[in-house]
């Protein structure tokens, strides 16, 4: 694929914006740190122990959580949309989020005192749901429609399960609501020690799949006639998408919006080049989540608004502007 100047501008712009968002996420928070205290804590942590503690224990894990949750969910959405050739495919649409949610509410109901089980329940639930979808749709030759329909069916099933446990055990509802809205408060480095390498691995795997996935834009028949093993590529893409989303929801909760609209935006900016999209989409997801989290922390300080609310408030206008501009260009 030819690399145009526009592609370089988009990728460099996204990288700059990502660095700026990560810096702002470290710089500002509910506790005010003066410029001197911030740079001092960063460069001479021994001289500024209070600021260094805030940076090390709160803001750095939170920044990394936002960065990798956004990247993981956007990567998952991009992979799902290409693997199923469906612009509506996203971790929350094909049941991965619902599976995670169901197992979280199940663990909260069965072990109400063991809140630390939540990330494991979320990760296990998401992966188990993905496995069920793959096994069932695998009986239909891993047909892309079968994958989406199985996912939607599991989403409905787990949604009913979540409602059932919420009605049965109202005490767990508050804890579950916090998880379902999604947020990055109180994330520790320890909680990130498994999901971050997992998301990095998924990203590397996705880049290796970029070439066969590019041929998916021609449909299964043409992709196969051009030498792609359609079933194997789709299976690998779905496994990577599920693992990436499961890792992200395990510490950030059910942030559905990122995995649906960020890949769309990335696709519009990259003109259908899968490899560039696989790079831009995680960057876009990370930027959106970092900025949304920053707004959530700063706007009503000291009260924090969950990041899931601001991802929609920031992302929807941007996405709609892009969509309308495209429609105007196409004369629609």
């Amino acid at each position, binding site marked *: 694929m030819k690399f145009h100047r526009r592609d370089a501008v988009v990728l460099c712009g996204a990288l700059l914006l990502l660095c700026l968002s990560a810096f702002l996420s470290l710089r500002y928070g509910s506790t005010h740190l003066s410029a001197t205290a911030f740079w001092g804590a960063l460069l001479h942590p021994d001289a500024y122990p209070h600021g260094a503690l805030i940076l090390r224990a709160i803001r750095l894990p939170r920044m990394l959580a936002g960065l990798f949750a956004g990247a993981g969910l956007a990567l998952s959405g991009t992979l799902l949309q290409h693997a199923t050739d469906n612009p509506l495919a996203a971790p929350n649409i094909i049941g991965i989020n619902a599976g995670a949610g169901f197992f979280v509410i199940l663990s909260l109901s069965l072990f109400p005192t063991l809140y630390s089980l939540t990330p494991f329940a979320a990760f296990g639930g998401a992966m188990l749901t993905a496995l069920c979808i793959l096994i069932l749709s695998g009986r239909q030759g891993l047909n892309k429609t079968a994958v989406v329909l199985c996912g939607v069916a599991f989403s409905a099933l787990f949604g009913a399960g979540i409602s059932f446990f919420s009605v049965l055990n109202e005490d767990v509802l508050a804890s579950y609501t916090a998880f379902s809205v999604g947020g990055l408060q109180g994330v520790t480095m320890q909680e990130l020690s498994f999901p971050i390498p997992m998301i990095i691995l998924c990203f590397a795997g996705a880049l290796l799949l970029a070439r066969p996935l590019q041929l998916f*834009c021609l*449909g299964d028949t043409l992709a196969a*006639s051009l030498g792609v*093993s359609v079933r194997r590529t789709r299976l690998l893409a779905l496994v990577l998408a599920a693992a990436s989303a499961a890792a992200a929801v395990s510490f950030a909760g059910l942030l559905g919006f990122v995995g649906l609209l960020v890949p769309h935006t990335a696709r519009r900016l990259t*003109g259908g080049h899968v490899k560039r999209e696989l790079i831009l989409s995680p960057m876009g997801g990370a930027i959106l989540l970092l900025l949304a989290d920053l707004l959530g922390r700063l706007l009503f300080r000291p009260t924090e608004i969950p990041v899931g609310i601001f991802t929609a408030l920031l992302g929807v206008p941007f996405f709609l502007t892009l969509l309308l501009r495209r429609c105007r260009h196409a004369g629609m």
Partner: protein
Amino acid sequence: MLECKNLTVAYGKSAPVLRDVSFTARPGRITAILGENGCGKSTLLRAIMQEIPHTGVVLCDNSLLAQMPPRQRALCLSLLPQHLPAPALSLGETVALGLSPRCAKLGEPEWQAVDSALQRVGLLALRDRPVSTLSGGERQRAFLALLLLQDTNVLLLDEPTAHMDLSFTAEFYDILREERARGKTILLVMHDVGDALALSDDVVILQGGAVAFAGSAAQALERHLPETLFHLCRYTATGGEEEAIFFRANKKHR
């Protein structure tokens, strides 16, 4: 060369869509697959492409297609499907995907090959336009360019002229004749019996999923097979020094 031996396709427990289909498409010849709607023409192409479960064997240049890895298969035979996608990529980038079984990175010579293929189908001026903005006929020409770039010994084409205008249809037939002259094996599914018989060297006629006739196009005409099998009326038109045969539906039979 493409050989199909005893190909049978059945979906579930229902009656087979294709029954014991055997024929050979030879190099340097155009073989047309003819038959009425639902007789299994497209299913036959899908079975040859190993896309659907089937019994029997398909040999491409004496190698079993079912045992070939997908990449090797893509170097042996290529397909122009009936329903074409409209990717967001530009026309040039889409056509360049035809080179993907052969090379991972595209350099200047490869892009020149893309331009030549686009020139051949008359779309070079539209190289930077997204495929999604092209008309149905232009898309058919675009994917023909992709097929030419894939450069396999065996070419399968499913209703390739369905959306083409008359002037490019004639050019398209010339391209097929050029490919035939280069020794390619061309298997063509077409609805227009007159065009198919005029263009092709050999004909396979399917009826109810089985082979009703396999032989040369001249033999099919001599035996009046379009008239007897498809209930068509034959007309002959003369223009200058050329004589053309075309067929119309027999109203009496309707």
